[in-house]
């Protein structure tokens, strides 16, 4: 049945229906309404194109869904983008239709209205479609050489997420995000789907990186300084994400564990993101300082809400008394609800009223005329004029306000929310105490006592890894777990040192020459930076009395201070268990044993010298498990504890060098020294079991060296692999030594160190 079930139809509408020529009954039902909207916004030609294209969608063979969405959405899209956007969009859909990606057409059309509102212009829309097209072409399957047979797994997911994504990132950011997904999950349909539907951690991390706005993680120190400097407070910040919780919008709060803040703030009303964070903190500090918890049981929910609004105003008022400049920020962020925005007959106006009162208190130039609002704002200021007032006084004022302004319609289920949310305020959970716990709600969660898990090790630290293929970092790619190295028998190390006593003696002589002397004056110089008056006078007196004067009458200065912090990073991978090969090898020692001797000697030598010195070992078992073993810290002495750990050194697993270097660097970075040196003792190239591409970890290590260099850390590699020349220069440039004769390592390592730091 192709005809509409109406008895009478306007002839014009009938003509349109024929022009559409679509037999789906669902279309017939809505056609008239859609047409009415289209007629009001589209031009004559626009109507023709609209119907023509709807006709195409109808006959496309993709069911009723595409044409329905198009008929319903196009008029509104046309108003945002302009009618002329249609050919480009039609072209794009046709391309999808001709590829195996027909299934993606519906999600594309569904999200089109929302995306166009985000993008706003045809140019941007074109960029978006180009991006999607490239995406489609690159992910449409050519598995086993069968050309374009399988649909792109990620594309429909991508379209479903696109309005949200565009809300978070710019087109350029979106492009980076898509690029990353295709590159890493291009050949893995399941993971690709996870990535583009924002299910995987990776995809969220990448999105976070591309986000616009002020991120909490980047500004934690600034906010910490803010609290400390302006408020003399100290708190931990715990971020929560606004992104994945669209319905229930979390708001800031604080408790014993810290202050919860959103992970990102965009600039708003001329207030920078960082200032929005500061506003939240100022508000919370206000509560911490001036709010005393009161009993909630005696107040109705509306009364509580009123008390909260007034108490919020009070702490802000007091904060502004300290820092008047806060007013500008609060004023810009606080909504200014229009007086007539809410019809109290149809919806509950309680929030609207309170937001107006709060605004009136904050803004001395408000324009509200409602007598109650003006009266209570004045009563508030009168209270504050006497001093700090109190939470209890606010409660009394709130009850009075409630009594005067109460309306029957407050109970209506539909509450007016627009312009009533003050998003820098916390949820006021600290303001209330309860006589009876949960007399209204059933308190299920009170019974359960959460037992704290015993912490067995430090939580992992995540490091990015460099992907040379794309010249980008993979964010938070590697997890580094740090633990204390197990302990062994320290006497073993002492024995090793006794074994090398002769070498130690020679080293000691070299070390004595390196001992710091700081600024030294060199006197008796023929040439120098200044005249040494005493000597000059003596020479002159000699001269006058007829003797030969000493010409060395100048002096100069030289600084010979030592300010070097050293980090020794040991590769503890499986290959160290091999027997050392080399000329005249009869000892049968493993590389590990030789390294142990060398490190012991070096540690002894550095300890004698007094330079700050740390030792760490590392090995890895995939990117999820890089272990960093703490052997000696900067503040630890070279004692039995440390020797014990060194004695227990063991080798296993693989070598993910970059992450270990970055981790070690964050310790070295914290040292206060003019020169920072990281020595890396390894016997092979970086590699790991989960990485097929050999170059990848080499390039990552090279990037790590560059990063360290920027941080002012000098890296130097001591490589025991005779074939190391193939790769070690790629990573370390010229900063390496290959020791082919491993037997001499115990001797060479301390010498090398001395030569490096002379």
């Amino acid at each position, binding site marked *: 049945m192709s005809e509409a079930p109406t008895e009478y139809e306007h002839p014009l509408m009938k003509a349109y229906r024929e022009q559409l020529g679509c037999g789906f009954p669902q279309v017939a039902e809505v056609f008239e309404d859609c047409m009415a909207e289209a007629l009001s916004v589209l031009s004559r030609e626009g109507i023709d194109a609209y119907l023509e294209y709807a006709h195409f969608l109808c006959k496309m063979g993709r069911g009723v869904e595409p044409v329905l969405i198009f008929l319903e959405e196009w008029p509104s899209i046309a108003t945002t983008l302009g009618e002329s956007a249609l050919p480009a969009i039609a072209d794009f859909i046709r391309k999808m239709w001709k590829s195996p990606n027909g299934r993606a057409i519906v999600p594309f059309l569904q999200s089109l209205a929302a995306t166009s509102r985000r993008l706003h212009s045809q140019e941007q829309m074109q960029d978006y479609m180009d991006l999607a097209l490239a995406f489609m072409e690159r992910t449409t399957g050519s598995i086993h050489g069968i050309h374009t047979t399988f649909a792109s797994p990620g594309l429909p997911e991508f379209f479903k997420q696109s309005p949200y994504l565009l809300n978070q990132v710019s087109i350029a950011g979106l492009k980076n995000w898509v690029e990353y997904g295709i590159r890493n999950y291009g050949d893995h349909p399941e993971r690709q789907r996870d990535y583009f539907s924002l299910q995987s951690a990776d995809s969220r991390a990448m999105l976070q990186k591309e986000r616009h706005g002020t991120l909490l993680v980047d500004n934690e*120190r*600034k906010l*910490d*300084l*803010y609290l*400390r*400097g*302006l408020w*003399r407070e100290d708190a931990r910040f715990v971020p929560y994400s606004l992104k994945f919780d669209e319905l229930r919008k979390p708001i800031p709060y604080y408790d014993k564990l810290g202050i919860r803040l959103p992970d990102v703030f965009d600039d708003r009303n001329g207030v920078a993101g*960082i*200032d929005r964070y*500061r506003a939240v903190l100022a508000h919370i500090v206000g509560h911490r300082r001036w709010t005393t918890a009161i009993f909630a049981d005696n107040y109705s929910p509306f009364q509580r809400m009123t008390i909260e609004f007034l108490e919020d105003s009070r702490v802000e008022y007091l904060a502004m008394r300290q*820092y*008047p*400049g*806060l*007013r*500008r920020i609060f004023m810009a962020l606080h909504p200014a609800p229009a007086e007539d925005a809410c019809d109290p007959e149809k919806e509950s106006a309680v929030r609207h009223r309170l937001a107006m009162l709060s605004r009136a208190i904050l803004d001395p130039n408000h324009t509200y005329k409602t007598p109650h609002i003006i009266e209570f704002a004045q009563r508030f200021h009168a209270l504050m004029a006497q001093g700090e007032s109190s939470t209890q006084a606010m409660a009394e004022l709130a009850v009075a306000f409630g009594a005067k302004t109460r309306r029957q319609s407050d109970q209506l289920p539909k509450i007016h929310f627009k312009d009533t949310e003050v998003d820098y305020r916390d949820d006021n959970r600290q303001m209330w105490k309860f006589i009876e716990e949960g007399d209204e709600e059933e308190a299920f969660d009170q019974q359960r006592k959460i037992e704290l898990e015993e912490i067995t090790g430090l939580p992992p630290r995540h490091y990015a890894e460099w992907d040379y293929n794309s010249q980008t970092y993979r964010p938070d790619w590697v997890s580094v777990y740090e633990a204390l190295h197990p302990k062994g028998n320290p006497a073993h190390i002492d024995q090793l040192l006794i074994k090398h006593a002769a070498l130690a003696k020679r080293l000691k002589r070299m070390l004595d020459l390196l001992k710091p002397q*700081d*600024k030294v004056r060199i006197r008796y110089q023929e040439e120098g930076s200044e005249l040494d*008056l*005493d000597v000059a*006078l003596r020479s*002159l*007196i000699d001269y*006058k009395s007829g003797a030969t004067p000493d010409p060395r009458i100048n002096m100069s200065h030289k600084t010979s201070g030592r300010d070097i912090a050293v980090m020794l990073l040991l590769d503890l991978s499986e290959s160290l268990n091999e027997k050392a090969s080399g000329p005249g090898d009869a000892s049968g020692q493993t590389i590990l044993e030789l390294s142990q001797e060398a490190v012991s000697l070096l540690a002894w030598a550095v300890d004698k010298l007094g330079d700050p010195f740390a030792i760490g070992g590392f090995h890895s078992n995939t990117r999820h498990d890089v272990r960093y073993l703490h052997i000696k810290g900067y503040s630890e002495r070279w004692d039995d504890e440390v020797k014990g750990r060194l004695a227990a050194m063991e080798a296993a697993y693989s070598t993910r060098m970059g992450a270990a270097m970055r981790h070690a660097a964050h310790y070295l970075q914290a040292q206060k020294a003019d020169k920072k040196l990281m020595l890396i003792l390894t016997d092979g190239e970086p590699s790991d079991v989960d990485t097929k591409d050999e170059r990848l970890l080499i390039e990552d290590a090279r990037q790590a060296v560059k990063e360290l260099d920027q941080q002012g850390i000098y890296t130097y590699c001591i490589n025991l692999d005779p074939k190391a020349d193939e790769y070690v220069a790629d990573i370390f440039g010229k900063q390496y030594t290959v020791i082919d004769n491993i037997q001499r390592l115990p001797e060479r390592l301390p010498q090398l160190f001395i030569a490096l730091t002379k």
Partner: protein
Amino acid sequence: MTDKDQYKIRKEPFYQAQGKEIALYEAAYAARLPVMIKGPTGCGKSRFVEYMAWKLNKPLITVACNEDMTASDLVGRYILEANGTRWLDGPLTTAARIGAICYLDEIVEARQDTTVVIHPLTDHRRTLPLDKKGELIEAHADFQMVISYNPGYQSLLKDLKQSTKQRFTAFEFDYPDAQLETGIVAKETGTDEALAAKLVKIGATARNLKGHGLDEGISTRLLVYAATLIKGGVEPRDACRMALVRPITDDADIRDTLDHAIDATFA
């Protein structure tokens, strides 16, 4: 004989006492005990000494110490002249001869072997041997030794020897409390109290950050600079940035926080 008057302080310097330090100093001077003044930079150490010299009506000889200073820079040396050499007294010797208060400012900046020459002057002997000249000077009855240093450097190298420390009586100075400091800034520059209070508040912000990226908070001296600039017609925010924030830090986060504190204080 050196002209004593040139070292006299003629006009009363403004000094706001924080505690009993004026009376205590007078007592120390009466017994001619050497005095050491410790405290952060710009908190009024030098001003205090100047004020006491004025109050006691004694000449004051100030030496700013630095690490290139030698013992002869303090004691004196022979200098060359057309027809021979001539002995020239150093500031310490001059002070001992004429009976002045000798003030060694930032003494830890001088090398430790240099500071040892003050030892015989700072115990019961009160003498200064000039070995090169072969003369032993008995200190004038009015002579007194005062040193100052800033223990905030926290450097092992920049500390006084115990043998030096234990020859002095000591005052510990700190930045005055907010109310007092407001008064000082207002009086010193002639600005109104409200503005001075705001400046002091910004100063307090920076002092709270000491140890968290700042080695030293904003000193009273800098607050006075800022007030002077504002009095000279500079916009308060610009003056604060120029006089209070930019000099003390290169750390972007701290600069940003202090800038915000300025904006928050000047509405």
